[in-house]
């Protein structure tokens, strides 16, 4: 398992995709934080907490996870991957784990960067900052969400093997479908895998009165989504003939 994990992490580091997406997540997140802190004068502590959860790493790691798994079919490398690691269940488990690790690392880099830059700008202007305990609280939530979404992405990539379809489908789901469900039926929407439950974990202030799940429960719901998607992807991978 550890050899497999090392190999998967090496795969991640040896194409440009990962580096590019890390850079994009970093740039976008920094842009949002810099603009918000520079242009808004009266940010409260709660505003700052929300701002620091707005790192883009979870979206990027979700897509990266999809690409990591669906890409094995797109580039037809699944055959050589399975030849090297014929236990397909262990293979999927390792890939899922490695994208969880990658998600946490990505989120760590981005979150620490935006917190440092945001806090610097705020304190330079003599404005509100939040303490280290609050920052640490935001940090673990960000890491947990990114790790779980990375894992979720891999499983979705295993289910929808067409990489482009899987990526577009997930984006539509995350940005249109889930928010719509949240609007119409918040009791259902807050259990959603890509924004409902993650917002619960991040303890995002609810918009328009509807409440997200409590962080602990939201975390369990996200884990359950990963579990279900993993089981389905594993069943499919086990049965599939690789020709």
């Amino acid at each position: 398992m550890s050899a497999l994990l090392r190999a998967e992490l090496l795969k991640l580091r040896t194409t440009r995709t990962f580096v590019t997406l890390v850079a994009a997540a970093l740039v976008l997140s920094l842009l949002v934080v810099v603009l918000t802190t520079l242009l808004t004068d009266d940010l409260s502590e709660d505003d700052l907490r929300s701002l620091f959860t707005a790192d883009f790493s979870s979206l990027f790691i979700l897509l990266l996870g999809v690409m990591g798994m669906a890409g094995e079919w797109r580039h037809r490398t699944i055959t050589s991957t399975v030849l090297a690691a014929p236990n397909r269940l262990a293979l999927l488990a390792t890939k899922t784990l490695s994208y969880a690790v990658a998600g946490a690392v990505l989120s760590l880099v981005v979150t620490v960067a935006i917190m440092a830059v945001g806090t610097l700008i705020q304190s330079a202007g003599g404005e509100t900052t939040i303490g280290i305990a609050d920052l640490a609280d935001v940090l673990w939530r960000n890491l947990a969400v990114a790790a779980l979404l990375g894992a979720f992405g891999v499983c979705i990539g295993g289910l929808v093997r067409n990489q482009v379809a899987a990526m577009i489908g997930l984006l539509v789901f995350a940005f249109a479908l889930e928010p719509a469900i949240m609007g119409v039926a918040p009791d259902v929407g807050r259990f959603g895998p890509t924004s409902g439950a993650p917002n619960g974990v991040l303890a995002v202030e609810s918009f328009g009165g509807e409440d997200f799940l409590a962080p602990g429960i939201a975390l369990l719901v996200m884990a359950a989504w990963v579990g279900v998607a993993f089981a389905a992807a594993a069943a499919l991978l086990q049965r599939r003939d690789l020709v």
Partner: protein
Amino acid sequence: MAVVEIKDLHKRFGSVNAVKGLSFEVEAGRVTGFLGPNGAGKSTTLRALLGLVRPSAGTATFGGRRYEELDRPSAHVGAVLEDAAFHPGRTARNHLRVLAATGEHPAGRVDEVLSIVGIADAADRRVKGYSMGMRQRLAIAAALLGDPQVLILDEPTNGLDPPGISWMRDLLRHQAASGRAVLVSSHLLAEVAQSVDDVVVISNGELRGRGTLDQVLGGDDGPATEVKVQDPERLASALEGRGHHVERTADGLLVLGATPEQVGGIAAEEQVVVLGLAPRARSLEAAFFALTGDGR
């Protein structure tokens, strides 16, 4: 003792019966050619052996164990499959590093196999820019990474130029000479005829013959002789008079069932001037076509 054992293997894809009860073995220290026309079921059989395709019935094992049951399979078995695929954005070296990490092979082995297959100079280029032959060499490097005792290759000469093909033959011979088992598929007999010890011939998912090349494709059409003479008709009727079957060719006569000594003797008796006399090389291709029922 058989290193690879295929026993009563069946594989259906929906309504297509790709492999129908195939059984054969592969021995160590020998190159076994796995022959059959397009669509015969060669790739399906090899993929079943490698755990990529689930057999509908029967088994395909290495020393009694399925590929998935081997520990560190890439240290036992190396495989090159049809149209080898790589992530286009990864360099050859990194591709091999990933495989070495998975199979727990020493990192230094990567450079060794790169130079064995002769692409060390291009190792740090992205595979995207590789020619077909370079990709094929990279696939072979990947197969050799674990220094395996068994090599399985599906049409490995695809994309190789003539020097590449001859290099491949030497590599396979060398691997077998050092005690390894080599199973190599091809739909072109000529391509493997010079490098195999044993052959397994299949057609339409069924076994058509197995044994040494001579046993399987030796046929029983006996000797044949090509002869060029000044007066072909006179010799032809003399030969036919003695019960030989004679075919008129553009150059002269083809005498079936007679050695050059016999034909020369008869020509001398008939006092015809012989301009050329040679045994005809038996056509392996013809025997192969007859065996596989492929009359194209």
